[in-house]
């Protein structure tokens, strides 16, 4: 009994974290069960949303709170390696058993990490019911359809995403990195590839603003017989006959379009307590029965060669087709530099496709964005003068405090200090932990530069870079001043709308003769009661160009649908509309309370005195509302100034970061642009100063009021 209990306690348990859902999740669960049946080792699985998985891994593993094995795409391998959270696979990995590019993707400086599970890459999907032959060159593709009706296209793919554009760039002979390994954007191949894509769009061979959902619709409705997409697309085809082909060759250069190959691999954590078991488990997942389960149940394209000989797999046209496609593919570079390519490329692509920038200038635009996002680390300075300065300050302050109490002991000056401290302690602790510590950390962080886990002291360099707009023009969305102006416009527009709509409704609701007044009042307060991110997501959906309610209404009124997030003005308006919806109830409630406290005989007196309704509003209502509304306006302006949720969820900063406000920009610097924590902290400190200045102004405003 005692022994069995011990044995149970010591039974090894492996933890596996993954980002799978649906069939893929079921497959991995089954594979894990097989492993348990085989070895007696329990496996605990944890499905983490894919977007959050990477940050969860990098924060949990160094603290020994992470998994033993985790599944991730190979692009992050370099980062995982630098953060020392991934262990090499050593001799366990037999290269010959997997597709070559899938193993290549897992190699870092001659060492292999993890075990390849599946591959993903783009292919050309063709409808099988149009009597077409698969084009092998771009010229054939362009001429594949001789006749097209309106709103019918030859090709559809998500042209605004660099993942889809990369094969075209490579097909035009483009090279992503120069000899030194730095990303390059302003190249002839870039211009040519963009020219070609733009011409597809201009010749209406391809629709505008294509999203994944639109690709699906066009293909299923037979409005675009060719689409470029990945293996995940098979699940979205509504019983239409189709075939899968390699991407065509670019006629101009004779080079094939080589898509990126993504390899999902099972990696072993460097901090696992059971390295051998973990290695065995990761390897198990990548081979044999586990692969077959993943292929049949999870519809994955296997990295294991043997799987393609399996009878069930060989019969699956999709899987065998992808094997051919994958041979042309190049693994997505797993370098850090690659991670920096996406955002500038996306910016350039969207700028060209939306028509704002010519293909020849797009490379430069991307280059500028790249330089801005990947600012060189400011020169490291020594923190010694700072420490000395801080110490002198503290000593002076201490001495001054002591002098103040000269000749008196502390106990004499504050005879009841003990009891007083006891009373203050709970609030003080909360304040200290929740406000003061984060504030001091944020303040100090703004003096550092962060790069891949290493902090270097740079003094005021972050502030200097921000305030001098280093690396970009003042009129570009990345500039602090541009964002500040947007933020101020955002705040002003919102507060004005909140107050005017709130006040207007309050005046309507004040009328005691209004029927169902209570019902209206509750209904109008509802937007306030719903959590704001839910509201934001609802509005985001309503602003959708194709499926959104707003464009549907505009369509019925005979107005062209608006592409809300491609222009600054409409994107900004969408944000403002959403936040106005959220913000007016508060102002309405405040105004209603204040309105009801104004005696009606004042209006009667004014009426007799000769005031029209408008004059009464201007000369009686407004001045008497001011004491109640002013604090609400001040509060509302600060809330709006830092209203991160709406910006992030509704416009997401589109187009090109133009509608980002200071907080969302600070967020992006911290979490979306190479984790420049110091720079982001400096942004936050500047936000603090702006709001501090505003609070001083408002203090004066409300001071005048009470005087």
């Amino acid at each position, binding site marked *: 009994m005692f022994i069995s209990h011990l044995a149970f306690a010591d039974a090894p348990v492996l933890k596996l974290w993954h980002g799978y859902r649906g069939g893929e999740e079921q497959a991995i669960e089954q594979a894990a069960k097989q492993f348990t049946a085989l070895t007696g080792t329990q496996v605990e699985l944890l499905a983490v949303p894919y977007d959050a998985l990477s940050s969860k891994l990098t924060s949990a593993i160094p603290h020994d709170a992470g998994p033993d094995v985790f599944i991730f795409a190979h692009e992050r391998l370099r980062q995982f390696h630098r953060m020392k959270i991934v262990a090499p696979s050593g001799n366990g990995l037999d290269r010959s058993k997997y597709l070559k590019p899938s193993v290549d993707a897992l190699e870092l400086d001659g060492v292999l990490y993890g075990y390849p599970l599946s591959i993903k890459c783009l292919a050309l999907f063709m409808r099988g019911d149009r009597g077409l032959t698969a084009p092998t060159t771009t010229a054939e593709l362009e001429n594949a359809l001789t006749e097209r009706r309106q709103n019918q296209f030859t090709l559809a793919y998500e042209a605004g995403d660099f993942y889809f554009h990369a094969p075209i760039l490579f097909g035009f002979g483009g090279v992503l990195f120069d000899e030194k390994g730095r990303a390059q954007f302003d190249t002839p191949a870039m211009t040519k590839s963009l020219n070609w894509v733009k011409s597809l769009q201009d010749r209406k061979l391809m629709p505008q603003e294509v999203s994944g959902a639109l690709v699906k619709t066009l293909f299923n409705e037979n409005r675009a017989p060719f689409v470029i997409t990945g293996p995940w697309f098979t699940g979205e085809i509504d019983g239409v006959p189709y075939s899968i082909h390699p991407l065509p060759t670019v006629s101009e250069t004779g080079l094939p379009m080589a898509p990126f190959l993504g390899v999902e691999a099972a990696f072993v954590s460097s901090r696992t307590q059971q390295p051998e078991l973990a290695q065995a488990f990761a390897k198990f997942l990548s081979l044999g029965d586990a692969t077959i389960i993943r292929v049949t149940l999870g519809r994955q394209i296997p990295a294991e060669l043997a799987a393609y000989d399996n009878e069930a797999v060989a019969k699956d046209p999709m899987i065998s087709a992808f094997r051919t496609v994958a041979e042309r593919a190049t693994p997505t570079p797993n370098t850090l530099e690659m991670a920096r390519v996406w955002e500038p490329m996306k910016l350039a692509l969207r700028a060209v496709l939306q028509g704002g920038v010519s293909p020849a200038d797009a490379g430069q635009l991307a280059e500028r964005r790249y330089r801005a996002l990947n600012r060189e680390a400011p020169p490291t300075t020594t923190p010694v003068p700072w420490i000395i300065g801080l110490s002198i300050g503290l000593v002076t302050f201490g001495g001054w405090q002591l002098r103040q109490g000269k000749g008196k002991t502390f106990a004499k000056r504050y005879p009841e200090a003990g009891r007083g401290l006891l009373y203050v302690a709970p609030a003080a602790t909360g304040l200290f932990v929740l406000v003061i510590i984060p504030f001091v950390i944020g303040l100090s962080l703004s003096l550092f530069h962060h790069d891949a886990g290493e902090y270097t002291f740079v003094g005021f360099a972050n502030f200097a870079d921000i305030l001098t707009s280093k690396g970009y023009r003042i009129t570009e969305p990345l500039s602090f001043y541009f964002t500040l102006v947007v933020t101020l416009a955002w705040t002003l527009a919102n507060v004005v709308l909140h107050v005017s709509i709130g006040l207007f409704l309050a005046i309507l609701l004040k009328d005691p003769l209004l029927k169902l007044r209570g019902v209206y009042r509750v209904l109008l307060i509802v937007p306030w009661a719903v959590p704001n991110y839910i509201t934001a997501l609802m509005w985001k959906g309503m602003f959708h160009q194709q499926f959104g309610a707003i464009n549907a209404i505009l369509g019925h009124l005979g107005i062209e649908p608006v592409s809300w997030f491609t222009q600054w003005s409409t994107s900004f308006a969408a944000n403002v509309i959403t936040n106005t919806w959220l913000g007016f109830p508060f102002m309405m409630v405040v105004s209603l309370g204040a309105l009801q406290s104004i*005696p009606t*005989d*004042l209006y*009667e*007196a*004014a*009426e*007799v*005195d*000769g*005031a*029209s309704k408008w*004059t009464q509003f201007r*000369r*009686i209502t407004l*001045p*008497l509302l001011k004491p109640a509304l002013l604090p609400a306006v001040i509060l509302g302006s600060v809330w709006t100034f830092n209203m991160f949720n709406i910006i992030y969820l509704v416009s997401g900063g589109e187009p090109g970061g133009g509608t980002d406000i200071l907080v969302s920009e600070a967020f992006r610097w911290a979490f979306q642009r190479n984790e420049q924590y110091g720079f982001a902290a400096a942004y936050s400190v500047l936000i603090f100063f702006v709001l501090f200045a505003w609070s001083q102004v408002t203090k004066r405003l409300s001071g005048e009021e009470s005087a």
Partner: protein
Amino acid sequence: MSDVRLVGIKKSFGENVIVRGVDLDVTPGEFLVMVGPSGCGKTTLLRIIAGLEQADSGDIVIGGKNMNEVPPRERDVGMVFQSYALYPHMTVKENMAFGLELRKVPRPEIESRVAEAARMLELGPLLDRKPKALSGGQRQRVAMGRVIVRRPQLFLFDEPLSNLDTALRVQMRGELARLHRALGVTMIYVTHDQVEAMTLATRVAVFNKGVLQQLGAPLELYNRPTNAFVAQFLGSPSMNLIDAKRDGAKFVGAGFTLPAVGDTSGEVKLGLRPQDLRVASEGPLRGEVEAVERLGFDGYAFLKTAAGSIAARFEGADVQVGQNVAVQPMGDVLHIFSADGAKALRHPEARGA
């Protein structure tokens, strides 16, 4: 200065009939006081004249012009509210100037009118204060000043003195009377206080339950009330009313007989003002003293008699609660009303209108 004519004014709020057809003529320069118990419709009528309420039917004619559809600001009336309704965010000066500014009166003219009103009402030192820094009486004067500077053709007052203490009320009453003399403008004044009505009015209109009971000079109403309600409403303490029956040359009631006057017959109500009765050792009515209101040398005793409560005046005499005393009428003082009190049948002859 202008006349006001009300023809068949009716007003109800939902089921509640407040004014039941009032006809009233106010002559130019008159100080008309509308008086009655609360809920009698006098304030509503005033608000209808001001234009703050719409009459359900009837006509309001001011200065010969039908005002039914005219908004208050174009009726050229000034109104002093019971709560004063001063604009709390404006100084005294701004409060008074507000109406003039809205009427686009030139600045120097505004200044001089405000200064004039301030002098008249002794508001000079208070001009830059806000209403919350003023006492009740001062606010009251500002409210009047606000109307005076506008020089409207008609002044309306809605119980303006009811929020003041007695001493101030007496003082303000004097000032109002002086103001009326000085301006000579038509004023309509609503109150529930018969003393204000008696002291201020050139004519008094007594209302009850939305009906105009009697309109006339204060003394006429006092001496020749048209019905028992008016008789009781004016005068303090109010008139004693006792039921009686004509029996030959006598009025016989519960526990008393009085020599009959006039030519009435059958059941009547007898009206005797307390001022006309004296507490005496002998008299037609007898009862126990329930309460005494001593005003100094004289006072009133309230007796419980077989015919009901009776108030009577006394002078000097030592009247105590619990004493059994009689009351004696002082000459021909008998008012006689129909048994339901709706109609006066006789007034003492010495008090011809």
